[in-house]
C-alpha cells in the first residue's frame, strides 16, 4: 500500500494487471487475511477483494475522513423510577462491528444503551459502568472476584435497587453461580443478561433481553442472582433462571438457557413479571449483603470417559490440585480402576465431588457397587447440582477451608439454591414434539 502512497479509507481507482478496473474505498485487511490482496468497498456498497501484483495500478481519488460515531444523549433522570446499575463485562451484547474495518469493538455507555433501547426510559434510570470488556470464554475466577466486589459495593452504598450485568453467554452460567455464592444475603436482584444475536443486527435479542433484565432488576419480588434471557424462539417472553441452576444448553438459539432440575424463578412478558415459584429470597432493602469473593483456582471439572487412566488423576494431584469435580456417568460413576487412586488422593487431602454428565437428574451412589465404593473412597455426592455449579462451589469452599469434613458439610448444604431436594417429573423437558404447534 505504501508503494502507491494510499492509505486505508482512501477512495481510489484500482486497475489490475488483466485490465479489470474498480472504484471504491480501501478497507483494512482482516486478521489472517492474504497480504497480497486489497479489499475495496465499491460505490454500490459491496465489498470485494483483489489480488495485487507488480502490474496493479492504484490512483488516489480522495482522502476520506475517519468515520465519527454520531453523538447520543443520555436522557434526564425520571424521578420515581428505580435506579439500576448496569455493569458491562463484554460479550455479544456489548459488541458492535466497525463496518469499515470489520473489527468488532465494545461499547458500553448509558448513552449507547439508551439510544439502542429507548424503551428503558419508561422502566428505570440506568447508570452504567464498564468492569471489563472480555469475551466470556476468557473469564476467570479472578474476574468473578472483581464483579462480585462491584456488585457488593453498589448494593452496600444503597444507590441502586437492582443490578444488571451484561455478560457473554458462553460462561454466563458459571459467573451467575459464582456471584450466587460470593455475594449473599442480597437486598435486591442481581441479573445477568446476554445476547445470542449481536446488537448490531436488526433481529438482535438484546433489546427484549435487556428490557426484561432491567424490569426484573427494578421490580422483581426476589433478591437473588438470576440469568434473564429469551424463553422461546419468539420475541415474546423472557425467563429468569436462578444463578446456581442455569445452564446454556444450545449453541445458538435465543432460548439456549434452561433451568436444570428446577423451575425458572419468573417469566417476564411485556414488562410484567410473574413468579413461577414460591421458593425464593424476597426483595428486602434492609438486608445487608455479605461478600465472600475468593475462589481457589486449583480446582478442576473433570469429565469421565470410558477408559480414563489413573495417571490423569495422579497428574492433577501432583500438580497441586486441591479439588476435583467429577462429571461421572449416570447416577455418578467412574471406572472401577480409578477408585484406588481417588481413595489415595482423598487421604492426601484432595476433595472429590461427584456430579453427572447426564445433566438432568440426581446423583445416587448407593445403587451400584462402584458408587458405594466411590463413597467409601471419600467422594462427596453432588446431589442434583449442575457440574458447573459444583465446580464453582468447590472453588469457593476451598478458598475458605482445607478441612475435608468442612468441605463435605458445605458441599451438601444448600447455600444458594444450588440443591433442589424435590425431583419433580416436569423438570425434564419433553423433547418431542418440542417446538411444534
Amino acid at each position, binding site marked *: 500500500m505504501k508503494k502507491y502512497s494510499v492509505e486505508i479509507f482512501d477512495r481510489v481507482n484500482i486497475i489490475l494487471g488483466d485490465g479489470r478496473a474498480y472504484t471504491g474505498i480501501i478497507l483494512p485487511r482482516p486478521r489472517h487475511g492474504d497480504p497480497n490482496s486489497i479489499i475495496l468497498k*465499491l460505490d454500490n456498497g459491496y465489498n470485494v477483494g483483489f489480488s495485487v501484483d507488480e502490474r496493479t495500478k492504484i490512483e488516489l481519488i480522495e482522502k476520506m475522513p475517519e468515520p465519527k460515531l454520531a453523538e447520543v444523549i443520555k436522557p434526564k433522570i425520571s424521578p420515581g423510577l428505580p435506579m439500576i446499575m448496569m455493569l458491562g463485562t463484554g460479550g455479544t451484547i456489548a459488541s458492535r462491528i466497525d463496518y469499515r474495518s470489520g473489527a468488532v469493538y465494545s461499547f458500553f455507555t448509558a448513552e449507547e444503551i439508551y439510544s439502542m433501547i429507548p424503551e428503558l426510559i419508561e422502566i428505570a434510570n440506568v447508570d452504567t459502568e464498564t468492569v471489563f470488556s472480555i469475551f466470556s470464554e476468557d473469564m476467570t475466577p479472578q474476574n468473578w472476584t472483581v464483579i462480585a466486589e462491584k456488585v457488593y459495593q453498589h448494593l452496600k452504598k444503597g444507590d441502586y435497587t437492582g443490578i444488571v450485568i451484561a455478560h457473554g453467554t458462553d460462561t454466563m452460567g458459571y459467573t451467575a453461580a459464582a456471584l450466587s455464592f460470593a455475594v449473599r444475603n442480597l437486598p435486591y436482584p442481581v441479573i445477568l443478561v446476554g445476547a445470542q444475536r449481536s446488537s448490531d443486527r436488526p433481529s438482535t435479542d438484546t433489546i427484549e433481553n435487556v428490557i426484561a433484565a432491567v424490569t426484573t432488576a427494578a421490580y422483581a419480588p426476589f433478591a437473588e442472582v438470576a440469568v434473564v434471557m429469551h424463553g422461546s424462539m419468539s420475541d415474546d417472553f423472557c425467563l429468569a433462571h436462578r444463578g446456581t441452576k442455569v445452564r446454556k444448553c444450545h449453541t445458538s438459539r435465543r432460548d439456549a438457557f434452561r433451568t436444570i432440575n428446577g423451575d425458572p424463578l419468573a417469566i417476564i412478558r411485556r414488562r410484567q413479571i410473574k413468579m413461577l415459584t414460591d421458593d425464593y429470597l424476597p426483595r428486602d432493602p434492609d438486608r445487608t449483603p455479605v461478600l465472600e469473593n475468593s475462589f481457589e483456582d486449583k480446582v478442576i471439572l473433570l469429565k469421565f470417559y470410558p477408559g480414563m487412566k489413573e495417571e490423569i488423576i495422579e497428574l492433577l494431584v501432583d500438580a497441586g490440585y486441591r479439588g476435583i469435580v467429577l462429571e461421572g456417568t449416570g447416577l455418578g460413576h467412574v471406572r472401577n480402576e480409578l477408585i484406588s487412586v481417588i481413595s489415595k488422593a482423598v487421604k492426601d487431602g484432595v476433595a472429590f465431588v461427584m456430579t453427572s454428565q447426564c445433566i438432568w437428574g440426581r446423583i445416587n451412589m448407593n445403587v451400584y457397587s462402584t458408587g458405594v465404593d466411590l463413597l467409601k473412597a471419600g467422594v462427596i455426592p453432588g446431589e442434583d447440582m449442575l457440574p458447573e455449579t459444583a465446580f464453582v462451589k468447590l472453588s469457593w469452599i476451598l478458598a475458605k477451608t482445607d478441612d475435608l469434613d468442612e468441605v463435605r458439610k458445605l458441599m451438601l448444604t444448600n447455600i444458594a439454591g444450588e440443591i433442589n431436594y424435590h425431583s419433580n417429573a416436569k423438570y425434564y423437558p419433553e423433547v418431542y414434539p418440542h417446538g411444534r404447534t
Partner: protein
Amino acid sequence: MEGRRVKIKCGIEFHQMLNTKNKLFCNCPTILRKDDPDIIFKRKLRPTRSELGEVDPAALFEFKKGYTYVYEAYSDTTCLVEMDEEPPHDLNREALEISLMIALMLNSRPVDEVFVMRKIVIDGSNTTGFQRTALISTGGQISVDGKTIRIQTICLEEDAARKISENAKTKEIIYRLDRLGIPLIEIATAPDIESPEEAEKVAYKIGQLLRITGRVKRGLGTIRQDLNISVEGGARVEIKGVQKIELIKLVIANEIQRQLNLLKIRDELEKRGLKLEEIRNEFVDVTEVFTNTSSKMIKKALSRGGKVLALKLPKFKGLIGREIQPGRRLGTEFADRARYWGGVGGIIHSDELPGYGIGESTVQRIREILNCKDLDAFVIVADSKDKCIAALEAVAERAREAVEGVPNETRAANPDGTTRYSRPMPGKARMYPETDIRPIRLSPEFLDKVRRNLPEMPEQKLDKFIRIYGLNETLAKQMLNSYHLDIFEYIVEKIGVSATLVANTLENIMKSLRREGYPIENIKDEKIIELFKHIKSENIAKEAIPEILAFLSQNPDASIEEALDKLGLRGLSPEELEKIVEEVLQNNKQLIASKGERAMGAIMGDVMKIVRGKIDGRTVSEVVRVKLKSFLDDIEATS
C-alpha cells in the same frame, strides 16, 4: 402515448432462482410448499445504526409502524438457519459455481475474493433483518440485434421469505420460511436500453441464457425483474417485482407516460407560478363541516372518534385529477403516499368533488375555511388526528415533488402494468459485511474448472438442434426459447426419442392443450420423462401423447400407469391386435368380398377406431395388410 419518440434510459435487474440441491447458507432443500407449517414464531426487528450513526430512513419507518412478524416454518425442510437461530453455514458451492458459470457466459469478470454482505431490509421478509448478498463479478455484455447491452454487476444472494398475509389491525405480517435462503443470481444491466421493445428483447435473451444452463428454476415466481427507468428530464425510478416477462414492455411504456405527464404537470405548475414554499404543512381541522355528512367513509371515521383534516394545495386545481397512467391520477400518487406514511385508507381531493356523498355546499365551506382561490385545490383525510397529520404531511411532500417534476422513488409493479409507490429509495447506509462468513477466494484453478464446464451458447445449441437433432429451423428456434429446454435435451440424448417428436410435444402439443384450457403448468418434468420412456419402449403409441398430457395436467400426482388405466390406453399385445383385426375383418366380410385389397383403407379405419393410442399405427397397418391378404386368400380358397 406520445407520438414522438421519447429518449429513455433503462436498466434491468434480473433475479433468477437457482436450481440447487440446497439453500445458499444451509442444507435445506430449495422447495416451496403448500401444506400447513408446523412451526410458528414471532419476532420484532429494529433498525441498526450504521458506522456513521445513521439509520436508513426506510428502515426506521418500517420499525415505527410497530409490526410484529409471524414466521411459519416446516421442521423437516427449514432449519434454525432460516429461523435466525443458528449462524449461516458456508456459502453453497454449487450456487457459486452456477452463478460464476452465468457470469462467464455473459463475459463478466469475477472478483478475486467474494465477500458476503448484509443488506438491511427490515420489512420482516428476512428473519435476520438483512438479506445476504455477494458481488461475484462486474462488467460483461450481451448483444441484442447487434447492439451491445452492458452488464454492470452480477451478485449471488438469498431469496426472502414469502409474504402470506398482513393484518393492519393486529399489526402482524405473516411470512413463510420455505423460500428464504433459496439462491438467487442477480444480473444488473447498464442503463443502455432505449425502448420498451428493446427491454423485452434483452429480457428474453437473458432468460434464454439462464435456461440454457439447465441449472435455474422455472415457473412463475422463479424469475423477477426490477426496472430502472428515467425519461429525459425525469428522474431515476426503480420498479420492483415484474414477475412476467410479457409485462416489461407495458410497464416501461406506462412509466414513460407517467414521467412525461408528471413533467407536463410540473410545467403547468410553473406556468401558474407556484412556488415550493406555498405548499405548507398547515392542516386545518374541518371536522365540523361534516357533522351531518352523508359520506359513508367520513361518517365511519367520525364514529370512531376521528377527525377530518384538510390541506390546501395552491394552484393545483385540475391537476390532481389528471390521469398520468391508465386509471391512475396524480391524486392516486398522493393517496399511495398517504396510505404508506399515514396508514390511512385513502384521501379525497377537490378534483373529484362533489362526489363520495360530499356535496357542493360542503366543498364551498372547505374552500372558504382554507381561503382557496380559483386555481387552488385541497385534500382531506378522515381518520385519527395523528394519522391524518402523517398522511397530509406525506401528501404535501408529494405535492412539492410535483413542482420539481418526477420524484426519485421505488415503485412496485401492478398486475395490469401500472405501478404504485412502494417506498423511498433506500439510503446507502444499509450494506454491512456479514461477519459470520469468511471471504471466499476464487482461485484461477476453480475458475478454469467452471470455464471448462460452460454450457453451449444459444448459437451453438441452435446449430446442434438443426444439424444433429434434425429439427427444422422453426422448431429449433422454438425449442431454444422453450421453458422445457433442459428436459428436451435430456429426453433426446438420454432416452433416445426422435427430437422432432419431443420438440413437437413440448412446444406444439403443450401449447394447444393450454389453449384448450388444460393447466399444463401442473405437469411435472419427471412425468414427461417417464412418458417418453414408455414411448421409447413402445408401450405407448405417440398418438396417445396429447390425451395423457391432458390427464396429467389435471392429475399431476397420477403415475403414467394410472393414466393409461384411466384412459383405457393400455398397450395392446400383438396377439390382442391380431384378434381385433380378425374381428373387424369378419364384420366386413361383404365389403372385403366386393372390394378385395382396396378394402384396406376402410378396414384400417375401423381398426384404428378401436386401437388408437394403444399401439403404433405402423404396426397396425402391417398387421391389417397381412391379415387382409390371408383373409382374401381364404375367401378365394373357399369360393
